[in-house]
């Protein structure tokens, strides 16, 4: 192993970065439950795909776990009440997004009873049909809890359609500061493993590989113990290296397969799910419990009580911070997610969503803002890029408004992991450039589609006008011919009569 690493170092195959992980002491604290916030706000769009459609009315009483918004379209996920109470509003609130723009949400006042909706539980969940498992996962609103929030059932169904042989369970949790997956694996390994077995049935995969970074020995031990009885569930220790948890990197690490850049993991026979998703699947299928809460890491030097908390979805971030003892010192940045890919929250009156893995309260030292300097072409970013891109060249093209040049260099392959900006000695906000360019690219593609459809409409209109003109001309010609025929007939008729006469 040591020799291989040395060899790899010499070959230059050392993508990624090794940030200080800051996971302890937060990861050492047992999971705590928070008091219930008086009012919860459930964003209708907290997953990839179409927003959910509300199926409750204002003033309606709901029980915990009751459906309040249903999935809309093929890629979507339903929402359930995280506690029992009364629907108080369906309208816009500030979304948990860097833009601070509003989005639709259902607001719910808790009645304090926290009473579950009674549901039937399958006697033997492992004898359910794959379709049935996927349907139950879909009905429970389970989405990818690693942060991608892609509806899990869609992926499970995809698995059966495209002959998956390996299910990869992502327990790498490579983002610094976050430890919710670590904690989940330590405390609820048995549930995760049973969720993995259900997902194996649903996808038809033969083996599940659980990738866990070597900086989480307790989680590895717990998962190994829980998985020991099942041959098809294998725990694989992977080196701690960011972004190990990115699906393409993890697939290479665990299976040696490389996903073509225009294809999906399923195309190489692999499907990736997060450990949190496996847990949610187990809860949904075995207990009939929809996804209404999740583990969230509170961390950062400005947090009073760093740790992991079981938080009902829809809890406001400000309530969450207050419940965990508030802040200490000056908070320079509030980040939702990890420090490498998370989003800055301009304000904290925004609700927690299914994809929220952590709330970081960073002080000035941690969130140091640097002034960008000129690129010295040190190529640190080239070495760090896990995708094999040339961030320095791409940013140079973007700075010069040469979007096509950046696309040629592989802009679309960028996963925005942040390694390049993390290592940049000139503190160039490379990821910001790439987000910006990707936004421009999307706008351009939208414009292109729009102009194409306009063109199509214009062509159709032209065709219609021509057809109408032609028809009109033909009709006129016909009328003229008829008239001529009539006149001819009229002219002939007197003659005829004359002749007869």
């Amino acid at each position: 192993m040591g020799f291989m690493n040395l060899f790899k170092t010499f070959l230059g195959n050392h993508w990624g970065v090794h940030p200080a992980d800051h996971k302890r002491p937060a990861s050492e604290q047992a999971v705590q439950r928070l008091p219930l916030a008086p009012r919860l706000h459930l964003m209708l769009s907290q997953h990839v795909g179409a927003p959910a459609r509300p199926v409750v009315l204002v003033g309606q009483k709901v029980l915990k776990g009751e459906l309040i918004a249903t999935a809309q379209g093929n890629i979507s996920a339903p929402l359930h009440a995280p506690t029992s109470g009364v629907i108080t509003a369906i309208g816009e609130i500030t979304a948990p997004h860097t833009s601070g723009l509003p989005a639709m949400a259902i607001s719910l006042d808790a009645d304090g009873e926290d009473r579950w909706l009674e549901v039937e539980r399958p006697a033997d969940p492992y004898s359910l049909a794959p379709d049935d498992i996927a349907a139950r996962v879909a009905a429970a609103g389970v989405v990818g809890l690693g942060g991608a929030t892609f509806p899990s059932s869609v992926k499970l169904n995809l698995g059966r359609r495209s002959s998956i042989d390996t299910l990869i369970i992502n327990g790498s949790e490579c983002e610094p500061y976050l430890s919710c997956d670590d904690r989940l694996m330590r405390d609820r390994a048995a549930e995760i493993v049973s969720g993995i077995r259900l997902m194996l049935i649903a996808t038809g995969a033969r083996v599940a590989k659980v990738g866990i970074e070597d900086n989480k020995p307790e989680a590895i031990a717990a998962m190994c113990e829980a998985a020991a009885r099942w041959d098809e569930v294998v725990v694989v220790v992977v080196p701690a290296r960011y972004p190990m948890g990115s699906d393409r990197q993890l697939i290479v690490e665990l299976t040696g397969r490389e996903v073509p850049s225009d294809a999906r993991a399923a195309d190489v026979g692999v499907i990736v799910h997060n450990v949190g998703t496996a847990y949610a699947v187990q809860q949904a299928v075995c207990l009939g419990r929809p996804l209404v809460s999740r583990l969230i890491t509170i961390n950062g030097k400005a947090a009073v009580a760093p740790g992991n908390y079981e938080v009902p979805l829809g809890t406001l971030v400000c309530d969450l911070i207050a419940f965990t003892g508030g802040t200490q010192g000056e908070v320079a940045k509030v980040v939702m997610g990890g420090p490498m890919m998370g989003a800055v929250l301009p304000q904290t009156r925004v609700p927690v969503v299914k994809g929220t893995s952590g709330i970081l309260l960073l002080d000035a030292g941690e969130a140091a803002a640097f002034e960008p300097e000129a690129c010295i072409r040190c190529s640190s970013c080239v070495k760090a890029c896990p995708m094999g891109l040339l961030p320095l060249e791409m940013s140079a093209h973007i700075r010069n408004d040469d979007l096509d040049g950046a696309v040629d260099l592989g802009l679309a392959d960028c996963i925005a992991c942040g390694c390049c900006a993390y290592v940049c000695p000139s503190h160039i906000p490379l990821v910001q450039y790439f987000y910006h360019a990707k936004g421009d690219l999307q706008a351009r593609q939208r414009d292109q589609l729009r102009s194409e459809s306009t063109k199509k409409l214009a062509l159709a209109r032209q065709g219609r006008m021509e057809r109408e003109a032609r028809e009109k001309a033909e009709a006129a010609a016909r009328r003229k011919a008829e008239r001529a025929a009539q006149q001819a007939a009229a002219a002939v008729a007197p003659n005829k009569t004359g002749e007869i006469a």
Partner: protein
Amino acid sequence: MNSAAITAQPIASPHAHGGNSVTRTMFRVQMALVPATLYGFWLFGWPSFFLWLLTILSCLGFEALALKMMGVTRIKRTLFDGSALLTGWLLAMTLPPWAPWWVAVVGGFIAIVIGKQVFGGVGQNVFNPAMVARVALLVSFPVPLTMWVSPLPLTSLAAPDFIDGLRIFLTSLPQPDAMASASLLGHAKTELSRGIDLFHSLAGEHAPALSWIGARSGSLGESASLLILAGGIYLIGVGIISWHTPAAVLAGLAIPAAIGHAVDPGHYLSVSAHMLSGAAMLGAFFIATDYVTSPNTPAGQIVFGLGVGFMTWVIRTWGGYPEGMAFAVLLMNALTPVIDRFIKPRILGRDRKGKPLDIPESKGA
């Protein structure tokens, strides 16, 4: 890109930084040069120290002037990021240690103003500024630029003291003949051109010795090959440079040298003579590894390094000048954009040409 996107405080991730900075990088390179520089001062005395100091001051001065003329608002910050200082330092390492003061001033001007700022400042120059200055000086003022002195350690009696050193430095009086000396490469080239082969020229009484500890005539940077090597290994160790460029430069120089020497030892110098002479070590570890003017990818750096090494050998062997490192570096600098254009890393999920990989037919079933 619109201006707001550049000027606005970045809000995109990541919200953490590895802590590296331009200043820290430059500082580490300077630290790596310290042992060889101090050793050079000891070997060549006060004049070499004055030369080193004035070259650096001149680089900083011209940098400040250029920044001011270009209307840069953050002069102090750019000035002290260490890049101009490093350029001056590297230039001083390649000059004859007893060169007069105006060499330092003119060299600083060429390096900073012509070599760097006219291209747009740090990160924009095509050619290595220190090498541009060194070559321009050598071509313009061949006599003072080839006046080498024998080492005269500070502790020896004959060494000029502080005042004498200053006098030598400022007045540029012709040096006493006894102290003048040719470098090994120069000696070999002169003798070869007179038709005397290496067996005789190197066996002669006045032939310069070859020494790992560098007690021989030469610039600061070529005297202590071992210390330069140690500095270079330190830089590789702390990750400032990768091994690709230096290894390729040395290989590019050693391989043809070994072949030539094996074929005709009378006309081709040995590998060790090439390695320990001139700016081979300094060039491999400190000059060719310059970030701005060398390729971005490991494969590109190997091509670049092999080119530098090979060109150095060609110039040393058949060229008009005894030393070729500076010319070789400049030539390869010119090729760097081409190398970067053709040698790119493979994108994950794509082949070398940038096409997406094929989707496998059977998925390991």
